[in-house]
């Protein structure tokens, strides 16, 4: 779709800092006309996407601004889908600011934050997921996050969700045929089986995303065990300084204490928890609750104790467990029997700590590689939430069909799923989509 936006926007595309090059972008119908005012010898019809070396001059006073490379784009073949121009200046903040001011004096308007992407979306050059991807790419703080954002920018995520939407619509069409043409002998199709196939692949994607997010924020290593097992001593040892109070009393630690460490390039969140089990403490219920929550969220659970795994501990499905027997320096401890894979340490003397640490690191490494072996299709919590909703709806549709409930109820679920996906890509307009455009591009504020 070609659009004609009334005005031409201008903004520096690089930060106003001393650097080798500073870039200014223009977008809108007058991009070329405005550019020409400051370029003395640009050809009558510059070839789109070709660089021209130009001396830039302020047209009224004639003062020289800079020598620069300029390039033009012809609508709709540009980022925004409009006529565009880019100027590559010497990277002086003074120069960049002066040229920008000149362009604005010549009829440009200073762009609002995100306005170039906004125009690209409004002109149909990209959908909302792609625009969000651009934003994520710019803000990416790790190569993994950048890869993820690039999938979105390339439209891979949109393709995936649109294909999913398409498959749901095909199933809906079967249901409509059953409902609207009861007297025609329509060849029966196994609708439930079709839905279950979609559910399976979607559930894998959701699982992968959860995994990635867990690891992306830091691998959660949780130290847990009965009261007075020496968890805090171990914790302090592992982080290398005295973070928590230690006392030879059960129930000394009440809150979950956490500390971020970086081991072998992997971000790790180390957590110390209150002892599992009943104590005299008035706050026992809250302590148990906090401990249980931490254990459930653990990627790696370090269980300090007698080497046995307590049955009533509720760990997440992703958790890996390491059995640790502490106080190996005390004579009574060694007299007991332990499972083969338990690690013997002495938190107070430091004995066996390197062994434990390398075991933790081994698991962390595996988790990290697993998560980033192939980036998940789903990126970001908003997409995750929508896809989770779609997943729930598909499951409900199957459940309704298998209980012999009227087909029209399952169509409701599937129609809602189609709408959810449409609103995610922005292909289906709703108030939610419009407000996302507002949030994303600071329109109308």
């Amino acid at each position, binding site marked *: 779709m070609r659009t004609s936006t*009334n005005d031409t926007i201008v903004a520096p595309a690089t930060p106003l800092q001393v650097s080798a090059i500073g870039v200014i972008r223009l977008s809108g119908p007058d991009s070329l006309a405005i550019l020409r005012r400051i370029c003395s010898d640009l050809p009558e019809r510059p070839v789109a996407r070709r660089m021209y070396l130009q001396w830039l001059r302020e047209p009224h006073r004639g003062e020289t601004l800079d020598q620069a490379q300029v390039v033009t784009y012809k609508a709709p073949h540009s980022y925004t889908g409009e006529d565009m121009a880019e100027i590559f200046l010497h990277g002086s903040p003074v120069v960049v600011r002066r040229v920008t001011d000149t362009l604005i004096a010549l009829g440009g308007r200073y762009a609002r934050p995100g306005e170039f992407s906004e125009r690209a979306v409004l002109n149909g050059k990209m959908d909302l997921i792609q625009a969000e991807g651009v934003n994520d790419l710019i803000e990416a703080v790790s190569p993994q996050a950048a890869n993820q954002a690039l999938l979105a920018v390339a439209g891979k995520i949109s393709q995936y969700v649109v294909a999913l939407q398409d498959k749901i619509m095909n199933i809906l069409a079967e249901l409509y045929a059953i409902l609207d*043409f009861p007297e025609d002998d329509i060849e029966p199709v196994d609708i439930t089986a079709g839905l279950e196939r979609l559910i399976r692949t979607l559930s894998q994607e959701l699982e992968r995303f959860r995994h990635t997010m867990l690891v992306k924020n830091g691998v959660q290593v949780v130290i847990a065990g009965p009261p007075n097992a020496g968890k805090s001593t171990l914790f302090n040892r592992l982080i290398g300084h005295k973070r928590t109070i230690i006392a030879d009393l059960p129930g000394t630690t009440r809150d979950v204490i956490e500390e971020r460490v970086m081991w072998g390039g992997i971000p790790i969140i180390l957590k110390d928890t209150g002892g599992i089990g009943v104590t005299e403490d008035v706050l026992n219920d809250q302590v148990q609750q906090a401990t249980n929550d931490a254990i459930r969220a653990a990627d790696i659970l370090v269980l300090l104790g007698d080497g046995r795994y307590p049955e009533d501990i509720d760990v997440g499905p992703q958790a890996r467990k390491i059995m640790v027997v502490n106080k190996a320096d005390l004579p009574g401890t060694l007299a007991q029997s332990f499972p083969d894979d338990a690690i013997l340490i002495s938190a107070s003397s430091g004995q066996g700590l390197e062994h434990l640490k390398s075991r933790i690191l081994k698991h962390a490494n595996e988790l990290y590689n697993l998560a980033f072996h192939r980036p998940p299709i789903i990126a970001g919590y908003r997409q995750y939430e929508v896809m989770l909703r779609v997943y729930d709806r598909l499951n409900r549709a199957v459940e309704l069909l298998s209980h012999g409930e009227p087909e029209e109820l399952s169509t409701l679920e599937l129609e809602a799923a189609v709408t959810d996906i449409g609103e995610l890509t922005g292909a289906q307009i709703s108030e939610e989509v419009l407000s996302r455009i507002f949030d994303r591009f600071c329109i109308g504020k």
Partner: protein
Amino acid sequence: MTKQYDILVVGGGHAGVEAAMAAARMGMDTALVTLPGPGLGSMPCNPSIGGIGKTHLVKEVDALGGVIARVADMAAIQYRVLNQSKGPAVRALRAQCDRALYPARMHDVVTSHNGLHLVYDEVVAIITQDGRVAGVRLREQGEVVVPRVIVTAGTFMQGKLHIGTRQILGGRIDMPRSEGLSGSLAASGLKVLRFKTGTPPRLLASSIDYARMEEQPNDPDAGHFSLFGPGSDLPKRSCHITYTNQAAHKVILDDWRSLPLFSGQIQGRGPRYCPSIEDKVVRFRHKDRHQVFIEPEGIDSPIVYPNGLATSIPEELQERMVHAIRGLEDAVITRWGYAVEYDYVDPTELGHDLQSRKVPGLYLAGQVIGTTGYEEAAALGLMAGINAALAAQGRAPFVLGRDQAYIGILVDDLVTRGVTEPYRMFTSRAEFRLHLRTDNAYERLSRAGYSVGSLDTQSFLQVQSRTRRINTVVTALENTRVKPDQETNENLKRHGQPALRNVTTMKELLKRRDFDPDLLFDVFGFDGLKRLCKEEAQTLLIRVRYEGYLLRQQREIERFRRLEAVRIPSGIDYFRIPGLSTEVREKLMSRRPATLGQASRMEGITPAAVAALFVFLKNPSKSTGQVQNNC
């Protein structure tokens, strides 16, 4: 002759009679101009009313005071419930009607109404003055002065019939076509296009071997259409089902390229879901049979209608095809099947009040704006009649939303999206299917019908007491509690129901899966449901059992209304809105959607364009600021 009416309706089909009756009910001096011949509301296609999606329209027209439901009941010779095993929102009643009695009863209803003048003549031109309707010209009786005209010309405008290579000018077989009217509409600036539809050969009932077919008898428990009418008292008749076969298909496939539908002789586009038999056979070659419904044309009619065999193939092939079908080996064809091509007006020329945007005072309804089906025609006729009358009274138009009625969906689809084939209603067109049911049509619409003046007071009171009766029982269900005592639980167990654990209400019990509503009385002595008639009990059961889903749908409706509530000022200058393509601007300029929701449903309006429009509507000052900046 120069005569003054408030409203004049062109055409006496299903759209025309509803339009004229609605206008007359609303106190308008109304003329109904029709060609002499088959009578009012005749059924040129199959002799049946209702069906999936269509029953919804019939009940809604009834709820708004229209006549189709009442007359269909008076002429019904069979009722059946379709989708009986499926959910309440897609269940539908269908009636076979006596082809002769239906128009006769319709004639009685129309002529017994004061203020409605039946005029037998042909409208050859619409007269306009200063760009709006001033009157019509009749072929025999000359000019008539009238400020509002509703055109419901059906398939009559420039009609052309096809039987094999034979082409006959006509509106139907044995009926002249309407000459001049479509030219007159085109001259007023309306876009006139061409569609095609068809009808099967008719057969002599006595020549059919019914023993070789499957019988489909009347369902005595099916109920009837109208809440207000006298119901149905005619004797009932059966339909029969047979199938085409390879031999019948071979008759068509042998030289299908020379048939009028494929040779280029027929240009107009036909409906995909009501295709001719040659279309079905050629397009779906893997199917070895197609269903044929043998529908009786009346209580004592010697003729039957073989539904499913619509065709325009040559007479000789029709004969061979029919005789190849089981039970029809010796069938005598009393009339050949034919296709009809006709002019229709692009419905996107109309506003939601069914009035032409180009020619104020001109309304169009029915098949002439690209629909198919008696029920669709009736619904549109009713709405055109109501709106013409409201305009005459200086009142605001009556527009139903997609969230309120199938009629709203019908009108909105036609005027915002237009048609590429004759438009038929389906339940899958409804976004809020569960809410738009046949059983609650009166609760949804009768108040509105009463306040515009289309539904009479007595009928409205009838609806109100029905609603009150249902509500009373719902309240009783909510307030009657049962304790989980031993006797209760033993009773429940005896009826295969799980025992109670806590105190619960009758309503919660009724919500249980597989709970027989009769148990409320049998086990607990709750007689509320016994005080309702069957239809009322049905409404109540749906309300209770689907409460969760209905509430959820209600939330979705509210969400839908938010976009629908963003009004676009009528004088908006689309060329001032940044981010719109020229094509989108021109489309919006010509259709002038009233709300952002309507704009979003227009074909060719991208989500991005809707977003740009929304941005402008929320903050037009900033956009003008940009323009100033640019100077």
